[in-house]
């Protein structure tokens, strides 16, 4: 049962990982940004499968639509550099590659070790999420319990805006 969703999830997951690998291995920085876009969309789709449609929308709107434009602009404004991931690269960075592979397996083993913690009740929640209604719970939580954190987020974005405008703007001398 449920193989349809599972198969889709696995497919999207594999594509996401491939795209993430693409961001690191592709030759041009611009292409890396394009691959990043696809990765982000893939991650957004996993949110859909995890029952959090709202974050899917936010991820695509803010991340894929907003942040990525920043990336593309800055790549175009800072010039290209060719980079090649080939056999020579692999030889030079053999330690790094081994570290990341080791990290992957350790991390997977560790995270699966707490699976028992979730075995019993988790599935029901996801089922509930798929039949809608949790988006509303989420927004209620956001505007009741986390009411006082939202303005801080505003402060953060405000300071980021101030700083980046100041850094990029060309000013005439006094």
């Amino acid at each position, binding site marked *: 049962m449920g193989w349809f969703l599972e198969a889709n999830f696995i497919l999207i997951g594999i594509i996401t990982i491939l795209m993430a690998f693409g961001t690191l291995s592709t030759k041009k920085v611009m292409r890396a940004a394009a691959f990043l876009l696809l990765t982000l969309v893939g991650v957004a789709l996993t949110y859909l499968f995890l029952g959090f449609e709202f974050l899917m929308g936010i991820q695509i709107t803010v991340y894929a639509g907003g942040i990525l434009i920043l990336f593309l602009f800055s790549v175009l404004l800072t010039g290209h550099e060719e980079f090649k991931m080939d056999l020579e690269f692999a030889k030079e960075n053999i330690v790094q590659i081994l570290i990341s592979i080791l990290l992957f397996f350790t991390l997977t083993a560790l995270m699966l070790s707490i699976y028992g913690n979730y075995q019993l009740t988790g599935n029901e929640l996801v089922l509930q999420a798929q039949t809608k209604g949790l988006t509303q719970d989420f927004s209620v939580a956001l505007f009741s*319990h986390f009411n*006082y954190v939202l303005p*801080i987020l505003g402060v953060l974005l*405000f*300071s980021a805006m*101030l700083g980046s405008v*100041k*850094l990029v703007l060309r000013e005439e001398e*006094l």
Partner: protein
Amino acid sequence: MSEFQIVIQSFLPVYTLLFGAVILLILDWTIGKKPVHKHIMPSISIITLIVAGYMVFIRPKDPSSFPGNPPLFYFGEFYAYFSLLAITAAFVIVLSAWKDMELELSLGVFYALLLIATAGILIIAGAMNFIPLYVGFEVLSISTYAMIGFKKKSRAAAEASIKYFLLGALASGILLFGISLFYGATHSLQLTSAVNVLNVIGTTKPNAYGLFVMALLVVGVGFKIAAVPFHVWVPDVYKGSSLSVTNFLAIGSKAGGFAFVFKIFLLSLITIKSGWAPVWAVLAILTMIVGNLAALPQVSVTRILAYSSIAHVGYILIALVSYAHGATEMATIGALYHLMANIFMKGTAFTVVLIVVYQTGGDTLEHFKGLSKRDPLTTFFMTIALLSLAGIPPFAGFFGKFFLFYSAVLSGDTYLAIIAIMMSAVSVFYYARIIYVMYFQEPSEANTETKTYPRFFILLFALTIGNIALFFGALFLTPQLVEFGSKVAQELAQFII
């Protein structure tokens, strides 16, 4: 008092700082091009900081009355102390940036960023949940990135900003991953959840999962507070950014970073303290040794002070270890006292470097030669600051180190105290070298500038008075100090059931 009033009153300091920032921006927009603005902007910042400091005192008396179940914020003694720390640090930076930054365009933005960064520290100090904690931390970080790169024409500042940004962003990414694993284990983002919830990270000793979470968190915060081996950015960034920002990194950002560390390790990960105490002990030893030894061959005074600031991080990390091993009160007192002393010592030292750079155009020992002949008062203040950094009485640095080392002895980690004392002895060499150069060597031909800056004089005077007053305060008001320390320690411990 209604819930709404409590919230408003609790957040008043933060609101004040933000209000000040907005006023500064409006002024920057209207009179930013006129020459008077370089005096108006810092003045307004100072007024804002004073008002915010006052607001900290009139926060609601009962911190547990903050709404929410469980509450996301707790505005107790810990919060009050760190807010005052942050506000004092910001005060010092405003006064030193008054001269340092005066030629920059859109000054209002700089001071607004400074105020926002201070607000970030306040939020860190008050947060009881990972969400406000992390967001406050990022408010601090993002404002700092922008402040470092603020001198756009300077190549060094650009380089410092890119280094600090890349490492900071990486650190916060790793930190986030650690928090996510923590959340997976405890099912809650409340800082105190690990204490109450049946946890998977280990009940008293961390299991493999707990160790991994801990490692990620240590790496994440280690970058921010510059513990060895995550310290590589410190000398370059301190050297590259303009000196008033360096000052902020050394005193303000550091206070925020330590508030963050204490929140994470003394509240949420306290159950697995047997796991992280040895790690921090090793890191403390490494930090002390590397910081002090690497400072020896340096010729740039900024770099010497940067390494010395790494070394001081090592001293404060002792507090974490001894807190975990039972000497909670003394460790708390030591850490809080040393962070305050740090403001006076480092604030003075970096301000003097700033003056010397203005007088001679460089910050190497060469430029400090014969400073006493040229500018005896500044030299005097610098000497006091350096002696205080070296931990020589009657200056605040002495008690800072004393409390920290004593807490190590109390908790049974005598080896830490011994290493720390040895390293302090090493540190005397490089501090003494600066003093020697200032007093006993003739100034080189080129450096004969004797211009003094009254604004700096006021600042240095205040800092030195504060330095000495802190020493005598610790000497004569020991019972009150101990009482305060135990109050904060109790506040931290009350969440552990």
